[in-house]
């Protein structure tokens, strides 16, 4: 199973999977992201309340109905997408940055590896939900704290994935060649090792995004998520769950969005992983 630089590039370039497997989920994600991005132009004010118009079912005036404050559910869901996606993407980026750094360092230095892996073990030993709720309950529930609280438990897994890839890449002849040619460590890491880890990172990052969006909704359900003034899919559901029998649209809209996003991200991740897998490629060839 050789992993030369050329084959990495080839893999990324010539994906042999049916396009649909990648394009379909990607389009859904893009759609949700665009809607969230342009929320302010697409929707009325999500904060404007009107108790006389509370709990109205979906209609031409209110595309997704109104909630118990009389606020437009459509507005809240689209703005909520902003929060949920921002949280998800921020977690994904933060996890990747931290995980890549730790994984690279660990992979290359056995001494650092020993210590770091102990630390990672300790973090993994604390249940993610415990850490998240504790951080939010103790330090307050702003969006930044939510991002931190979800990121920290995800870092060890990403670090391990990167570390695993680095360990394998290290053994490659072209690395030795680069060292012999006088490549210094930082350049080595960035120019030669890092590209080899990209496939594994991409796949793991996609799962992190999905997990982050789900985790945000769970934290909101338990009362420890983003403050309700800032709508997020999680806290819209949390506020509205008592209304499920009376006004199901309040819960179904954000719930469907979460499921759709997470489903798409997972399917995309699966497709990417299958595309990177040499055995898959062999079978399809």
């Amino acid at each position, binding site marked *: 199973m050789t992993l030369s630089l050329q084959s990495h590039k080839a893999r990324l370039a010539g994906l042999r999977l049916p396009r649909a497997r990648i394009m379909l989920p990607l389009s859904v994600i893009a759609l949700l992201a665009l809607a969230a991005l342009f929320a302010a132009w697409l929707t009325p004010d999500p904060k404007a309340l009107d108790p006389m118009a509370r709990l109205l079912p979906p209609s031409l005036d209110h595309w997704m109905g109104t909630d118990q404050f009389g606020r437009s559910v459509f507005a809240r869901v689209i703005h909520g997408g902003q929060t949920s996606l921002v949280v998800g993407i921020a977690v994904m980026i933060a996890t990747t940055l931290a995980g890549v750094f730790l994984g690279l360092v660990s992979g290359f230095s056995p001494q650092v590896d020993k210590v770091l892996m*102990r*630390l990672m*073990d*300790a973090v*993994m*030993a*604390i*249940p*993610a*939900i*415990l850490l998240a*709720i*504790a*951080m939010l*309950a*103790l*330090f*307050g529930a702003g969006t930044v704290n939510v991002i931190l609280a979800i990121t920290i*438990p995800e870092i060890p*897994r990403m670090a391990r994935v990167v570390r*695993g890839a680095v*360990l394998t890449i290290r053994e490659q002849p072209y690395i030795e060649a680069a060292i012999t040619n006088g490549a210094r460590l930082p350049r080595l890491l960035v120019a030669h090792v890092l590209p080899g880890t990209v496939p594994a990172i991409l796949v793991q990052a996609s799962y992190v995004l*999905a997990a982050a969006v*789900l*985790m945000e*909704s*769970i934290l909101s*359900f*338990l*009362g*420890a998520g983003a403050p309700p003034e800032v709508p997020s899919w999680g806290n819209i*559901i949390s506020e509205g*769950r008592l209304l*499920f029998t009376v006004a199901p649209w309040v*819960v179904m809209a954000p*719930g469907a969005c*979460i*499921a*759709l996003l*997470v*489903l798409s991200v*997972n*399917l995309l991740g*699966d497709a990417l992983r299958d595309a990177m897998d040499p*055995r898959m490629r062999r*079978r399809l060839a």
Partner: protein
Amino acid sequence: MLGYLIRRTLAAIPVLLLVAVAVFSLLEFSPGDPAELIAGDTATPQQIAAIREALMLDRPLIPRFAAWFGAIVQGDLGVSLFSRVPIATLIAQRLEPTLMLAATTLTLVIIVSVPLGILAAVREGTILDRLVGIFAALCFSVPVFIVGYGLVGIFSLKLGWLPSQGYVPLSQGVGACLRSLVLPSLTLGGVYIALITRVTRASVLEVLNEDYLRTARAKGVPSFWILLRHALPNAAIPIVTVIGFGLGAMLGGVVVTETVFNLPGLGRLTSESILRRDYPVIQALTLLFAAVYVLVNLLVDLSYGLFDPRVRQWGGRRS
């Protein structure tokens, strides 16, 4: 093998110590404390200080940590700040529902996922395979509490087949106990069904495509028995690994499931203690979960020896 075990166990100790220090520091550096909440809104600063003193929250960090850790090592987990009930008692009271839930969920997951995974692998590329894939992805994507309420809506409220909430202790009948855990297990198990189906399918596929098996099949030996004899042990390792790593993530699902189904278990105790800032309980529970996680992963490593003869030879699986 024994040497490997001992080394791994010893390696766990610094991990647990780190966890203890981490959680203690987290609580230490967070703003606010339970004394104000207990004192109420008309409390004078003196009353709050008195409560703080009675709860021993005013002593400096290191002696407090040393006292607490010393007690834990001797088996004294402390008492809850709010109910003054010994934490060991609190845990004992709540242990059964959580353990039973975990056991039934695990059983359910294996019973559902392994056959599904095998099916998908054997029928690889067909509509059935696609459907199983989508089912797995869906299980993973819908938030746990929505699944829970949805199941209750169908099976309890509409059909009346199962109770909507509550835990029946084993002492009152195995049947009734299991019955109260069916919906919770299905709810909690969703994510694992997705993961393990996928992992099973991947491992079985890997084995199915080995040349010697292709030869055997070409010769006409029934493939089913080949599967059983060769593929499953191969699949067992990743399955068991997923279970091990997944245990930490499982707690999140456990907390939500116990809330939705009103199971008085450790999950709810955890989230309630955190939101209430019941420091001693939070600290004890964190350490407990960390210890369980370490233990489970140790068992997982041990089981590699069962499934993979190479491990037994080399005394450990190279990562």
